[in-house]
């Protein structure tokens, strides 16, 4: 284990510089630049769908159903779906629930994970025992199985139509069963860096537990955890599609990429491939760009694996 | 030309055991090329111990690894020179043939035994691994050989200890296992790359004495790589001092201690406690070893050299000069004897 400890010291000995060097290192690679551009593009689409399509995604006229893509300049550039709704409008308005769900879930899981990981790693004793039992209970029921269970059991609770309301149920469930990875990671990092010399030195100088945790142990635990974030976001985005297939993800009338993919998949086999390819393309592009960023972030932070 | 290595006893006496001739090793990272070893030459005879001394970053370990072809070849590249084992240039050998030499004729012992031994295999397995996979020695015979090897390196209760794992051994014991492992195929040359650096002083002495005994008993050639001149005194016959990838001085061990010809060697001697010179103020060498990526012009030692004349800076790096009595030094003022 010694080599890992040595590297941690290498990373932390220029605390200020870590993110700067990471940033410089990342932006020199062409695939990271491309990935950042793509993810920024989709974040903008999610934030301002109006920019990309003026038609209302829920204005569906059955008489114009199943029109093949006509290209830009025509009323339906990306064609229409079987119930006559405009595909481009759905794509633009579908981005927000998918991305919003991903960011909320990962953000919340991160906060819970770090808090529990830090506490259990730092204090050990009964705190660690409780957290470990909690971990085991939640690990036993995997993420998607829990989502399937909870979202189908509580299917009738209607949380209203606001942006956030449509994703609140899947968000709660995915977070509820998504934090365990971060806790394990942070706990391991805390255990590892807890008895390093610089932490013991700080403790010897009379630093309080809180200061120790937040200014000494957390920064270097954060380093390894943040590398997980982009890949986790990618995971939730594709999980949303699976939930939509099971009918327990984002609720119609709201539209999301997952819903488009799950209803488009059969039509792909029925001779209307664009109904699946457009949303799937968006999803894969977003997921790919987040994962590329995640991988490079991890490589930058963990020189051993460069 | 694939020369086979079926050397008979006869020509063993003719060609020197191991010759390194004008060895150059470069490290390429991105567009930048760094020369870690530029022009190292030395020879090793059977039954003699050659110590290579120098601060970290002087290229001594790289030289050792170049001999064993252990350098990771995307960054590192041997850009010149020859390494002859019994007149046979190892660098020219194709991979399988060179591999036959490793372990069989030349073996190496590393500094940190805990990292160098595989944690998930028993000591017995790692000792007999070479025997079983290369010489297809049956399991029981290999186990006995392992017990003998541990006995040779004075590890108590060997029959029990071969079943245990590296993390169950103390630092000193692990180093003995490393040595035993290196001797498994009775090599003629043993390279010890800072074998005792990770150990405390008392254990250091035991290991050095063990190496000396084994080397004498088996008439092996021993290359001892260290940054600590003190360790070298009892065991080494010949000492070469390296600085910034170059051989700066080479002389028999008594001469090095009595009449250091290169200012760097003198500085090294002054920085270690000497029994024969009591009450002498220990001096640390000023400055830091040069970055290999931008070695100072002229004589690389000149920024830290007490003498530091203009010529040291302007002229190309001095070559090794023969000062008689097998003494050589790479310094413009080597002949003027007694450098302060």
């Amino acid at each position, binding site marked *: 284990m010694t080599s890992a400890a040595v590297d941690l010291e290498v990373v932390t000995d220029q605390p200020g510089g870590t993110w700067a060097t990471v940033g410089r290192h990342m932006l020199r690679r062409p695939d990271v630049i491309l990935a950042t551009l793509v993810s920024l593009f989709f974040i903008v689409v999610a934030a301002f769908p109006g920019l990309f399509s003026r038609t209302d995604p829920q204005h569906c006229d059955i008489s114009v159903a199943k029109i093949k893509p006509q290209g830009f300049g025509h009323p339906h550039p990306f064609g229409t779906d079987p119930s006559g709704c405009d595909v481009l409008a759905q794509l633009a308005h579908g981005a927000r629930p998918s991305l919003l769900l991903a960011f909320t879930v990962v953000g919340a899981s991160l906060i819970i994970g770090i808090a529990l990981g830090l506490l259990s790693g730092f204090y050990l004793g009964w705190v660690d025992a409780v957290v470990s*039992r909690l971990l*085991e*209970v939640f*690990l*036993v*029921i*995997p*993420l*998607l*199985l829990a989502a*399937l*269970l909870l979202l*189908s*059991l*509580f*299917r*009738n*609770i209607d949380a209203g139509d606001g942006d956030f309301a449509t994703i609140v149920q899947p968000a709660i469930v995915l977070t509820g069963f998504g934090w365990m990875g971060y806790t394990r990671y942070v706990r391991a990092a805390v255990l590892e860096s807890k008895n390093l010399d610089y932490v013991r030195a700080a403790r010897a100088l009379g630093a309080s537990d809180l200061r120790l945790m937040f200014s000494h142990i957390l920064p270097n635990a954060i380093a390894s955890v943040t590398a997980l974030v982009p890949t986790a976001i*990618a995971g939730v*985005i*594709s999980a949303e*599609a*699976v939930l939509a*297939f099971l009918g327990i993800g984002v609720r119609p009338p709201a539209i999301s990429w997952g819903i488009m*993919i*799950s209803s488009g*998949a*059969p039509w*792909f*086999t029925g001779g209307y491939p664009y109904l699946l390819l457009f949303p799937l393309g968006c*999803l*894969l592009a977003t*997921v*790919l760009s987040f*994962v*590329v960023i995640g991988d490079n972030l991890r490589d930058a932070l963990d020189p051993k694996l460069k | 030309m694939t020369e086979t290595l079926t050397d008979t006893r006869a020509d063993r006496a003719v060609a020197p055991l191991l010759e390194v001739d004008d060895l150059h090793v470069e490290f390429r990272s991105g567009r930048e090329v760094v020369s870690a070893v530029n022009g190292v030459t030395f020879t090793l005879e059977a039954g003699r111990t050659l110590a290579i001394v120098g601060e970290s970053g002087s290229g001594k370990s790289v030289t050792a690894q170049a001999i*064993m072809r*252990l350098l990771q070849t*995307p960054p590192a590249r041997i850009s010149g020179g020859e390494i002859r084992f019994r007149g046979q240039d190892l660098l020219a050998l194709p991979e399988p043939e060179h*591999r*036959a*030499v*490793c372990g069989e004729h030349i*073996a190496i012992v*590393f500094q*940190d035994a805990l*990292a160098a*031994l*595989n*944690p*998930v295999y028993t000591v017995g397995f790692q000792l007999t*691994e*070479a025997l079983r*996979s*290369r010489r297809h020695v049956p399991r029981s015979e290999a186990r006995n050989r392992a017990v003998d090897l541990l006995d040779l390196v004075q590890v108590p209760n060997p029959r029990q200890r071969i079943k245990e*794992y590296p*993390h169950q051994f103390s630092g000193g014991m692990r180093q003995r296992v*490393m040595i035993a*492992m290196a001797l*498994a195929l009775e090599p003629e040359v043993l390279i010890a790359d800072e074998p005792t650096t990770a150990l405390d002083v008392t254990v250091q002495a035991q290991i050095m004495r063990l190496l000396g005994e084994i080397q004498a008993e088996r008439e092996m050639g021993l290359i001892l790589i260290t940054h600590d001149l003190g360790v070298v005194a009892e065991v080494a016959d010949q000492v070469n001092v390296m600085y910034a990838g170059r051989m700066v001085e080479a002389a028999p061990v008594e001469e090095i201690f009595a009449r250091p010809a290169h200012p760097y060697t003198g500085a090294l001697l002054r920085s270690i406690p000497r029994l024969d010179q009591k009450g002498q103020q220990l001096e640390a060498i000023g400055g830091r070893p040069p970055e290999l990526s931008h070695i100072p012009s002229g004589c690389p030692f000149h920024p830290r050299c007490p003498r530091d004349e203009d010529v040291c800076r302007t002229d190309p790096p001095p070559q090794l000069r023969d000062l008689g009595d097998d003494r050589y030094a790479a310094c413009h003022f080597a002949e003027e004897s007694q450098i302060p």
Partner: protein
Amino acid sequence: MVSYVIRRVLLGLFTVLLVLLLLHLLTTLAIQLNGNPALAFFGDHVPTASQLHAVEVRYGLGDSCYQQPGNPCLGPFWHRLSEYAHGDFGTDLEGRPLTDLLAQALPNTLRLFVIVTITWLIIGMLLGSVAARFRGRPIDHSIRLTSVLIDAFPVFVMLVVYRFIFTVPLTTWARRTFGSDSIPALLFKPSYSEEHPWLTLIIPGLLLGLTGCAPFLRLVRAAQLENYNAEHVRTARSKGLSNAHVTAYHIVRNSSVPVVTAVGFVFADALSGAVITEGVMNIRGMGNLLWQSVQKSDVSVVVGIVTILSVVTIGVMLLVDLAYAALDPRIRLD
């Protein structure tokens, strides 16, 4: 070692108890909120109060606490626990004992998992080692990129596309050329068949395994990279051992340790993948059974299956830890 196993088993039982309690509270709350599954029994027809009550009793939901939201209904919980203790896992809404349902569903899901795990190990180890071996070269990037793409690909898309586009032409071609009962013909059969469970599960298992192998592949690559630079590998090379020997004994063997732990985590996620795979490919397995019973709010089956799945998961996690200790002697199971 034995004391460790006993302690872990006890902890596992405690966790299963917690899971059971959690499940009971959730399902009870669901029934209280969603209304009584008994009503679905009558379809379009409107039952009288007595008929409804008769069906409720038949469904084991007779207890009035199911009508008051928020009431934890601990009575039925203890009842179910005592039943479990006596080995009676209750029946589904139609009165079929859970043990029969499981006897039919469990083997299929386990067969699926065997194929999935083999797919992970082969693809994960193979591509992971290749990516590590040629680190930084184009093949390394392409492997990592394709693994990310497959990982992002929702599993149902692959299954739906395979089932509706590829199976029919493939199986008709195979039947014409190799005969209707030949291996290839059965391999590409559009859905699971009871007579040839293993053959018809291979492709679904492969596809499910494919989507799960990306994290696996990354882990193998990282573990092997760590070992490529390890000093003990340099020592092994210095002993003149062949490349193959060094790779097998000193690189793959050491990097298998984290890979085994990965099996524990990814196994739990494969359960959810199974729900979809079994649904699309019409495989009568645990995932499919669970999905059906959740739709019908068939509480005793839901609780029964999730409990058994958690016991299996805990078992696998314990086995993974034991394997971990066996593979790495430094780990001491106190």
